[in-house]
């Protein structure tokens, strides 16, 4: 009984691990979906940062000059990401 249990546990695990090795290489569409999700996440993180610097500017923790330059940098970065997202969506 114990040997059977050990065998099932071992064989089951090995099959699960080995199974992907016998499949054809995954399609490119999945890579695109993953890439899109990454870019969307990065875009949302940038939007959040823009909101944060707005508050910091209101609280006087950023000078007007620093606020404008940081906002511009973040917005440029976000625009770049949006461009990449649109490119990927076309594919």
């Amino acid at each position: 009984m114990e040997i059977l249990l050990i065998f099932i546990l071992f064989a089951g695990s090995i099959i699960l691990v080995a199974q992907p090795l016998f499949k054809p290489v995954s399609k490119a569409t999945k890579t695109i979906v993953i890439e899109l999700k990454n870019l969307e996440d990065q875009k949302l993180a940038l939007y959040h940062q823009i909101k944060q610097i707005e508050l910091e500017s209101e609280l006087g923790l950023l000078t007007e000059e620093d606020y404008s330059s940081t906002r511009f940098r973040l917005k440029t970065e976000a625009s770049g990401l949006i461009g990449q997202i649109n490119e990927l969506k076309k594919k």
Partner: protein
Amino acid sequence: MINTFATLGAVSQNLALGFSLLTIILLLFYIKNNDSRLFISGRRAALISAALVVIATMVLARELIVSNFNLEYVAHYTSRATPLLYKISALWAGQAGSLLFWVFILAIYVLIIIYQNWNSNQSLMPWVIIIVTTIQLFFLFMTNFITNPFTPVEAGIIVADGNGLNPLLQNVTMAIHPPTLYLGYVGFAIPFAFAMAAMITKDSSANWIRIVRRWTLVTWLALGIGILLGAWWAYQELGWGGYWAWDPVENASLMPWLTATAFIHSIIIQEKRDMLRVWNMVLIIVTFTLSIFGTFLTRSGIMSSVHSFATSSLGPLFLGFVFLILVSSFLLLIYRLPLMRTTNRIESFISRESGFLFNNVVFIVMCFAVFWGTMFPVLTEAVRGTKITVGAPFFNQVNIPIGLALLLLTGIGPLLAWRRTSKARLIKQFSWPIMISLVGLVVLLLIGMKGYILISFTLAIFVTTTILLEFVAGIMARKRRFGEPAPLAFWRMLRKNRHRYGGYIVHFSIVLMFVGFTGKAFDKEIEIAVRAGDKFHLDGYEFELAKISTIERSNHFAWIAHLRVTEIGAGPVTELFPEKRIYFHRDPDQRKRQPHSELDIHTTLMQDIYSVFSGYDSQTESASFKIMINPLVNWVWIGSYIFVIGTLFALWPQRRKQ
């Protein structure tokens, strides 16, 4: 002879080791060949390895619950009379079980990070999995070959009943304190793995920081709760009237928490200003190394401690592992230094960046002081052959001024602007807090406060004022911008800036804790032997021993004292029932019976009346007591609750509009 379940546990543990190795091999091949099938396969091996660890741990828990004394571990740490909760907590009471429990938590974390990053961070994930699996491999090696929790009792021996759990561990707080501490210790493996993966893959951006920020906070919170629960347990259970003794094991948990706190602050600078890349790497390496070192201190037996419930010969292995982590991580960091350099510099001494940097320096100095004091006995023994113990006075003398400097920075930092703070802003931000603190200082001087007590209370006022003003400034900003009424502005301000205001709530909790710590300076105590009907006095209170009764419970016998407490000139205050217990009282072998004092405390916001029933002489019917009046101690625990609330608030996911 062990049963099928125990065999399943032992085999799962063996297989987990094998699959951990397989994970590393497959993922290294994936990195070399870039064949996604190898990645999927390696990831599955990691998942299976983690699942097998979970199975092994569940099996050991089951064997403890059903009292399978055919296993050495079960027989050593439980008995039939051990209550169910403590049978479960015996899982982490001994060395072998606690190491398996360590891997169990890591396995759960591995499952979570793999799930969370199933479709993201694909460049980092192979290395992250390799690194956490290597850590897992080390612990599995120990539980398989050095200290195996599934080791059967010697052949031919039948154990009718086990030894039972140490009475000091038969406490609800102590049942949950180690798991929370371990959640913290183990959790730092994840940010460490991401940091190493970022360096290996030459990703010098703040991406890894964004990924691990939440993880680090969760881990930091868990370690913080673990430390506070340990303090609470020491206060409630050990009977010496304090909550922090600078014991080596306490220090072992405090050190990674201090460096992690520094890390949590300094990553903000990397996110905002792309500075301190190398410093953040150093901090996370040191934090994780200190976590392993903490486990080493607790489990190696190198230090004598009230918290060390297991001793062993694991020391050299742990030390070797710590050395390996430090050397390999720092070599990698040195190799990647050219990539980590940034052009941004601190522009002004009076800026938010330098505030954070000072805070970091102070945290590191404090950590080093604690490390030095903790390791000094070991070092002196190694060098001179005699152990020179460093006691609480050393730690207090060094850490009280450092702690007060930190408290001051808690107040100053948030008021400073990024890059530089103008003179006008300095005056605007600091005038009210300084004025209110000065008024507080004068009042405190008038009521006779001096020295560190005076500084601590004044700083508490200063920091509280700065935090309140930050909230007010936030509300005013929203009112100006959106025309919202104050309550709505307050609510939206909190909701939309959880990190910032959660952080301020945590800062406030630290202020409250400092108030509690300062109260320690006013402690009063008496140790006395009395008989029923006798009265004694302490600090304006009269204590009367009304009677002593006895009771027999499932796992111990107890004498219960009935103490009536009256405030002189004011009337009755409370009744206290401290107990003197004898665990394993039915054991015919007198040496196995273990005495234990279960204390009773009357708590108010201003002070605790703390009673310990130290001993009872049935011949003379004389009972010994230790009574303490501990002012303000409750603020340490109130601060602890607020610390948890603040961190959870900062952690709570923020809804982001698309």
